[in-house]
């Protein structure tokens, strides 16, 4: 997990301020020209604080505003006012399109790529184990210190481990280190460049970049304009939502605040998780091992994209079952055919899942908890002081547990045990690199008969890039909220029977 996850930095602050500004302008149906003022409202100092110049700082904020409105990244080679671009974009389609995750190129500080360096901790010691353990003879002991020949070095790390003075460091690009599928390359200026054929849009690089040079697109504007237009917009909220808006803001308060914002209904996505866990248990009971060798879960889109893009041979064994998001959206649309559905979650890649042909008629908008928190501020909704309504009881204990690593496999295996008397072997992939490794093992035939849980974010959905809380804190809230459910297993959930009719 990136070291920056859960730490509040000025990068986080600027990102959230941009979201809040976009929301503020969307809510008052502002003219496009108003957007030109956002960089000046956010960077309101006389001189630069963060970068070489204040003009660059503002230009980066402008690039963030573009993506905050779902627009494509634009190069800085053409003179164009922010507002002109926005006017054209909104006059045309005005919707999010791929690619979702983008490098703001001129914000990238061109960190050196993966390399080992000798620091001045080196004592030029007599033993110099660094050079002895080097398998490619890349280290020579020069006049003042050991020197690594970068042409020869294969970055195996043996010298770093052997040095008694911790004098050797492995310098990695934080964005590339956070990417479990090696999708981050360099462009001709040595700036980070995302290879979109490899990228699975998990969003971890957005959190990891210490210069804030990577951003995803947002649908805040489109959602708020629809609510303001008086459409029947209904929310489904992902299981990791509890606690995300502060320790005094209960699940019920979050629901009440969403209604205050103008959403007509809020359902827990955990209800969809109950559907999904029952469905996947049924699939497992019927198809494993006769029709297929193992079953991979379906809820994490980035995990399924790893299969699509990196290990396509295993794709057919990842559940065809719809994700909890889709089940929850279907249940809303079944009751309200004219409604629009917004998925609110911790997840970046759900924004892409919602664009897929199978899902685009079911889920209309996807926003993150972080984006929603900014919307609440822009709308002047004080979460600690909203009046709460009745308790929410949409989902079971195990459905609510979907947000924590291990929770999906636990829910499905409990259903298998209780309903089919099957106790499957479980393999869990926690984090993107682990997802790829696990799928390669599956491809090699090492996981026959297994139920395989895939979570692209470490710790599960509570580790998602769109969360506000540190991962471990989020996980505790999820577990506590799961304990409050009136139903233990998915098959005990009375709301499912109601929905199926």
């Amino acid at each position, binding site marked *: 997990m990136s070291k920056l996850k859960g730490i*509040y930095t000025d990068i986080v602050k600027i990102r959230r301020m941009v979201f809040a500004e976009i929301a503020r302008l969307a809510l008052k149906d502002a003219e496009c020209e108003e957007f030109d003022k956002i960089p000046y409202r956010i960077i309101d100092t006389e001189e630069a604080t963060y970068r070489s110049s204040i003009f660059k700082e503002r230009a980066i904020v402008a690039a963030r505003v573009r993506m905050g409105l779902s627009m494509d990244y634009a190069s800085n080679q053409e003179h164009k006012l922010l507002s002109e671009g926005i006017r054209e974009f909104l006059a045309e389609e005005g919707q999010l399109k791929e690619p979702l995750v983008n490098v703001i190129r001129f914000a990238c500080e061109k960190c050196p790529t993966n390399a080992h360096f000798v620091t001045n901790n080196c004592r030029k010691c007599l033993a110099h184990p660094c050079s002895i353990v080097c398998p490619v003879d890349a280290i020579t002991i020069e006049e003042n210190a050991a020197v690594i020949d970068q042409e020869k070095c294969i970055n195996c790390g043996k010298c770093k481990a052997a040095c008694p003075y911790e004098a050797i460091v492995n310098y990695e690009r934080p964005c590339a280190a956070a990417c479990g599928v090696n999708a981050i390359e360099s462009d001709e200026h040595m700036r980070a460049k995302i290879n979109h054929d490899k990228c699975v849009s998990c969003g971890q690089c957005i959190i990891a970049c210490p210069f804030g040079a990577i951003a995803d697109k947002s649908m805040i504007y489109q959602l708020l304009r629809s609510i303001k237009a008086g459409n029947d917009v209904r929310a489904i909220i992902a299981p990791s939502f509890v606690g995300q808006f502060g320790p005094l803001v209960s699940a019920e308060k979050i629901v009440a605040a969403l209604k205050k914002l103008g959403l007509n209904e809020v359902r827990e996505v955990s209800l969809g998780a109950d559907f999904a866990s029952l469905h996947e248990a049924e699939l497992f009971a019927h198809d494993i091992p006769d029709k297929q060798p193992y079953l991979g879960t379906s809820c994490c889109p980035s995990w399924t994209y790893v299969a699509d893009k990196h290990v396509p041979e295993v794709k057919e064994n990842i559940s065809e079952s719809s994700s909890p998001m889709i089940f929850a959206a279907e249940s809303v649309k079944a009751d309200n055919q004219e409604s629009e559905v917004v998925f609110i979650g911790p997840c970046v890649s759900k924004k892409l899942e919602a664009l897929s042909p199978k899902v685009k008629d079911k889920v209309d908008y996807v926003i993150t908890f972080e984006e929603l*928190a900014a919307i609440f501020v822009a709308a002047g909704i004080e979460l600690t002081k909203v009046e709460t309504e009745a308790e929410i009881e949409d989902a079971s204990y195990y459905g609510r547990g979907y947000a924590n690593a291990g929770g999906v496999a636990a829910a499905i295996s409990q259903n298998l045990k209780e309903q089919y008397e099957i106790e499957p072997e479980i393999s869990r992939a926690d984090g993107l690199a682990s997802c790829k490794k696990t799928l390669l093992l599956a491809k090699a035939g090492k996981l026959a008969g297994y139920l395989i849980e895939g979570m692209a974010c470490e710790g599960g959905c509570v580790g998602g890039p769109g969360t506000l809380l540190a991962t471990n804190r989020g996980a505790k809230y999820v577990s506590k909220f799961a304990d409050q459910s009136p139903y233990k297993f998915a098959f005990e959930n009375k709301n499912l029977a109601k929905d199926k009719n």
Partner: protein
Amino acid sequence: MIKVDICVGSHCSLVGALNLLDNVEALQLEYPDQIVVNKVECLDMCDDIKNAPLVKVDDELITAAQTQLVISKVMERIK
């Protein structure tokens, strides 16, 4: 006893109060007999978001509170 009130309203939570709370609570564990941490509702002082997050260390109000400043204010009072 050093009293630290941390506002966890909408504005303050958006701009760092949750992370600040993590850090102050970690400090509280080191000095359990000297620090008490309270999570408080919106103090109604954040009309200008630049005031958030709001923290009170005893009776001293800190606006735009950053972790390092709050921690240092608390440490000044530690015996």
